[in-house]
């Protein structure tokens, strides 16, 4: 019983670490995400999704509908690509909120989104670490 509890605790710890790592995992660019999709699913898309476009989740639905015929590597890539794109979008949306304080403190008076970002990157030694991480996750370094 004791042993079992220990292993449960171990599993929980692993799950916790995995979750923490997942939360901090580097996001990847949209370009890299869809490059993986083209590489692993290109043949299946051409074979099973002729005439289907990369918009409105259509490629995803098509590959899911044909899951039985689609290469397993494509199915797993599709899942990770979808997650990657979502993570990058979330990171980009989070940026202005997470960095709000740093913008006010270090870049007050700087005009223009691009200039504000450049200012934040320049002052990153004093920036809050969360803002720093948000810029990295958004892919704007």
């Amino acid at each position, binding site marked *: 019983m004791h042993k079992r509890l220990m292993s449960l605790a171990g599993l929980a710890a692993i799950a916790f670490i995995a979750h923490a790592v997942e939360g901090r995992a580097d996001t990847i660019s949209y370009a890299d995400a869809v490059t993986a999709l083209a590489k692993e699913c290109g043949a299946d*898309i051409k074979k099973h999704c002729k005439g289907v476009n990369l918009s409105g989740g259509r490629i995803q639905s098509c590959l899911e509908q044909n899951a039985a015929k689609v290469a397993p590597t494509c199915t797993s890539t599709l899942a990770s690509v979808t997650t990657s794109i979502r993570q990058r*979008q979330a990171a980009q949306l989070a940026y202005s909120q997470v960095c709000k304080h740093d913008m006010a403190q270090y870049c007050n008076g700087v005009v223009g*989104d691009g200039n504000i*970002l450049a200012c934040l990157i320049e002052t990153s030694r004093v920036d809050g670490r969360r803002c720093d991480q948000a810029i990295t996750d958004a892919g704007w370094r």
Partner: protein
Amino acid sequence: MFVTRIRTLAMVGLMIAPGYASAQQINHNQLMGTLGRLEQGAPAVDVALLAEELAANAGKGVANLPNWQNLSRLSQLVVEIDFENDSVAIEPGPYRTIGMIADALHHPNLARYKFLVVGHTSSTGDAMHNLKLSQQRADAITDALSTTFAVAPDRLYPIGVGKEWPIDAGHPAAADNRRVQLINLGLLR
């Protein structure tokens, strides 16, 4: 045809850049630099007027029309995006190009700008068919950018010019004219 190579041509200010032959694989920074350069006194472009001029001149070309001439003074980029034959479905090969454009459009340096997405064809085939297909393809790219990559749709203006505005005016039948052009129209209002 499944083309994995991504040939890209960056141009600023000129429709026909002398460096066209050295079309190259472009990276994120080049893309940002090319699309983000905003010249002083860049003309304001009315997309509705472009469409009007185009509709009134199908078959005759638009390069010398006043509103189309203005476009040549704006920051722009020409990319190759292959579609399935006579279809609006983008081949998997150029997904990367679309993704790179999305990365650039989401960057704070470009986030406030709106863009014209111009679909081109070569001079092969019927003018009206080319016009229609290029519009549908420009729409398809805009659709991919605004759904899969969450670029705000009010920043993108798709327009198909068919063979009316050849990229390589000296060789309108060349495959190099089957391109998509992104033009920075300036700040969102």
